[in-house]
């Protein structure tokens, strides 16, 4: 926990850093934002990550309809794990 940061603000930073894949001690300070404001940024970023993932996999599924069967199998196996 960063010294001098109250618990609700620290919780908001933790949420944002988790979304940004940053370590807890990353030197990113958003002073003078409030806990609510930091939390709103974290929530917005969570939304865009989710949307991006959906868009990417929708694009991939659509793409797979347009490639030859042999290549489709290769791509599906590659992206599907």
């Amino acid at each position, binding site marked *: 926990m960063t010294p001098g940061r109250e618990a609700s603000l620290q919780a908001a930073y933790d949420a944002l850093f988790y*979304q*940004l*894949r*940053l370590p807890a001690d*990353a030197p*990113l*300070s*958003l*002073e*003078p*934002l409030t806990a609510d*404001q930091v939390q*709103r*940024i974290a929530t*917005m*970023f969570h*939304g*865009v*990550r989710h*949307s*991006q*993932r959906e*868009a*990417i996999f929708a*694009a*991939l599924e*659509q*793409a*797979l309809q*347009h*490639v030859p069967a042999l*290549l489709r199998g*290769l*791509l599906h196996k*590659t*992206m599907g*794990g």
Partner: protein
Amino acid sequence: MSTFQHRAERIKIARLLRVPVEQLQDLEGLDVEPLRALRVAMADALFIDDSKYFGRLAAVTKLLPAALSASVCERALGALICGRAAGLLAPEDAAAIAKRLSPSFIADIAPELNPRRTAALLQQLPHGLLGDAALELERRGEHVAMAGFVDVLSLEALTAIIRRLSDRTLLEVGVYIESPATLDALDVVLDDNTLVGLVQATLQDPVRLCGLARWR
């Protein structure tokens, strides 16, 4: 704090978050540097997301001829997927594919690229192709995306591209360019006619003064 730099950063974050800039009023109290750090962290996090899948996709392209990869990219995979995968390919492999893409599709990909992570690729592309793509981005009004590449292209490439763009576009892009050092270097490529054009374009719309200030 520079107001126009601050607004430029908020606009870039809004593009990343795919929201109108008006929704980012919470960020108005931040200084420019923390805003920039937040934006870079967001761009990197979006790039890292799902990178294991894109790494595999990038590996597949090594198995295919560049011409076939380019065809699959443009006809099937689309700009979002290709933009994400581009940063995970070896620069020479990505360049071999990119050279076979249409300028229009490269313009589609440009807003999806992370310029810092694709600098080596971009530096291998022919200036003519970059210029063609830049003209398409200009036509689409993608000034923020264009500005993102200024810091990662060579001075020679930028010179070739700038000579093909309108004065108005140079002003618009100037608002979003990050590095003053790059702008200093670019001073040498702006001839007197271009500078006169920049001033005239600014007079038509004083809001562009901030862009002119960047080009000095």
